């Protein structure tokens, strides 16, 4: 490290590694991981999100989890929460659908209406 | 036997404290013998009385053999307010030693020390390099029993 610019480069990379603790998050993806969610494959869904986000190097997207949401028949359920927009809830998710949601919704900003079960808070 | 330690330090006076730490730590009985003082004196070209002067000034050094485990019970006001007296009595009774002495099996030496800086979890003690907090008499039994098993 010889210059302030070198320091800045390291900082940016390190911030990315610490984003779980940080505030620099544009979109939060919340996977419902109650017992029924897990039984219906929520873990695979979450894993798929993590992989997609990581492969595409989406630094401002956070994948997290929550408990049972009471939508058992629609499990696995996923919320996409974006600052300043209505929450979008997807149901009956699968790893394949995840890939589509990431491309369409997360990257291009168009919610995938086929999978939506509800919107708004 | 001291050569290995000496080789890590240049023979200057300011290394005295570290050399003494290393010698004491490497001795199974955690002390600095007369012979060691002589060796340090030769290596640093300092009179033995200077070395003894330093050695006796700092409370962590010992010129007499000690146990495998050195128990340092904090005697600062916090630990006192939170009941270190009871812990001291417990240690004395369990190990059958008085302060500054070593248990018959040669395992434990009981010492008192100034604040260990873990006051939020008083009373505390340090055994060699490990700190144990929120002590109760039962906990002391557990800790000593575990150390006895290590052998």
């Amino acid at each position, binding site marked *: 490290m010889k210059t302030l610019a070198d*320091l800045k480069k390291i900082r940016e990379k390190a911030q990315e590694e610490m984003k779980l603790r940080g505030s620099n998050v544009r979109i939060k993806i919340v996977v419902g991981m109650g*017992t029924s969610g897990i039984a219906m494959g929520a873990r695979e869904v979450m894993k798929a999100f993590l992989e997609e986000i990581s492969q595409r190097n989406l630094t401002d997207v956070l994948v997290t989890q929550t408990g049972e949401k009471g939508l058992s028949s629609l499990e696995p359920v996923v919320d996409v929460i974006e600052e300043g927009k209505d929450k979008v809830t997807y149901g009956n998710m699968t790893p394949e659908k995840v890939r589509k949601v990431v491309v369409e919704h997360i990257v291009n900003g168009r919610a995938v209406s086929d999978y939506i079960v509800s919107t708004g808070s | 036997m001291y050569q290995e330690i000496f080789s890590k330090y240049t023979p200057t006076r300011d290394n005295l404290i570290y050399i003494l730490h290393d010698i004491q730590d490497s001795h199974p009985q955690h002390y600095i013998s007369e012979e060691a003082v002589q060796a340090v004196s030769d290596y640093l070209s300092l009179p033995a009385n200077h070395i003894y002067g330093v050695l006796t000034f700092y409370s962590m050094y010992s010129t007499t053999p000690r146990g495998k485990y050195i128990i340092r019970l904090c005697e600062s006001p916090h630990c006192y307010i939170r009941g270190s007296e009871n812990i001291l009595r417990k240690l004395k009774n369990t190990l059958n030693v008085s302060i500054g002495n070593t248990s018959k099996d040669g395992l434990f030496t009981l010492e008192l020390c100034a604040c260990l800086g873990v006051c*939020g979890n008083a009373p505390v003690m340090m055994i060699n390099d490990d*700190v144990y907090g929120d002590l109760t008499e039962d906990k002391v039994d557990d800790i000593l029993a575990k150390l006895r098993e290590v052998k």
Partner: protein
Amino acid sequence: MSLKRIDLLICCGSGCVSAGALKIKDKIQSILTDKGLLQEINIIETGCMGPCDYGPVMVVYPEGVFYKKVTVEDAEELVEEHFIKGRPVKRLMLQDEEKQLLSTQKDIPFYQKQVKVALANCGYIDPESLDEYIALGGYEALGNILTGMTTEQTIELVIKSGLRGRGGGGFPTGMKWKFASSSKSDQKYIICNGDEGDPGAFMDRSLLEGDPHRVLEGMMIAAYAIGASKGFFYIRAEYPLAIKRIKHAIEQAKEAGLMGTGIFGTKFSFDAEVRTGAGAFVCGEETALIHSIEGLRGHPTPKPPFPSDKGLWGKPSVVNNVETLANLPTIFLKGAEWFATMGTETSKGTKVFALTGDVKNTGLVEVPMGITLREMIFDVGGGIVGDKGFKAVQLGGPSGGCLTSEHLDVPVDYETLKAKGAMMGSGGVIVMNDTNCMVSIAKFFLDFSVEESCGKCSPCRIGLKQMLDIMERITSGNGKEGDIEELVQLGGAIKELSLCGLGQTAPNPVLSTIRYFRHEYEAHIKDHACATSVCLDLMHFMIDKAKCIGCSLCARKCPVSCISGSKEEKYTIHQTDCVKCGTCMEVCPVKAISKVPVMHDEVKASREARKKQLESEE
């Protein structure tokens, strides 16, 4: 490829480690390994998070859920419920008085009045990761200074910020630098004083353990300002983890090119070493510390010459406390004006306090200078434990003094505390409830100073011992008329005449308790009474015959067989033989035994008889 979705921050400050944090970490790690979740969950060992009383504590991000008093047995549930199913474990979370869950750190009152500058990263980052420190702005201040500021500008900025030494004396940091900077020499040294020894203060330890790079960066800024190319960390040998962490930080900085020659492409070169003590409180005094680094007995020497003229090996040196250095990077990033907006007229910025004693939330807190003791003890600290009342607070350890409830609304700053007879010191705050005897507390602190006096100057070596003898006399019921006056006089002389800070402040606990609790001293001496029954010679146990059922349990359990009686006559304690162990009171099934806070007449009479006998023998 990073698949991490949870950052698990486990507090591995000394408090939590002593309460078993590492065992919990190992357990969680092994469960995660078994379940194949290790790559999704990042386990980070952080420095002290502050609320030591709740240890072991941990925080789970991204939600920021705060868990307290976690045990190894809880690990399975945490993983299963929270990490897998996303349901935080409520029973391990804090609750307020209305049983409302306080799920995240920012909900907890303990944190709400705190302003973290020095402790900003402590408990939030992995102290062994240089990257995490850099992510939060680390080394940017140093880079800016080296590439854009002259040494004069650097010193000027610190003077303007109003930063004063956090180790005890409160000397303006910028002025200290200015003196050393103007000393001409081929070699100068910067020394970090990590020989924190005040009983009850552990902020330096926490900083060195929890955010070592911050202290190192602060040291490098100071080094640049005074023109030093070499630094020493002098750390107590009782703090092995702090020593390890700072050594590790130095290695990392060297590897990254942040230390060595030509730092940030400038002409500034710097190297640092760690030196340790070997158990001597007086080495916290700067001249004693310097002698200890030189391989001598840690004796203080008279000032002048000040270290800024003739310090380590006779070269100009600046000794700065750990917390002082830790403030520097933020002062330079946010500006002197920002720092000076916090605090009072004479005391700027924030101060870290170690809150301990009979207060609900013990631990490390960082608050703006000028906060009142009431806010610190009752808002941050949560008030007194149990149903006891507040009696006094001891500030500044064995160098400081006791303040009472009438001082709860005074602002905490260097000058105010000094005027009231206490001291900022390094920031130890011991809260005491009304079961504490102030005379014996003062005796205890004095005892500490007598132990730790290095013996070089006679006021401290002999004078303190004289004071202690009087204090022992008073607490054992042998106090005399005139003892209080003698203590005051001796204390004043010792403060005037001692060579270093240890002796100059050691009488404070006694003097301040005489000032505010004189009636307790008088009761001890004149009435042979200790109102709190702490001084065993000045109290006795008594059996209430009206309540006694004559069961004989007390008599059978008494270790010195000083209780006798019968079912009909009830039981009586023979006061002259009683050793005041309290066993009888504990075992009495009908609570017929109580403490009476005064020496029993029989004991008084027998003492006088013995005294007379001794006199006649002579």
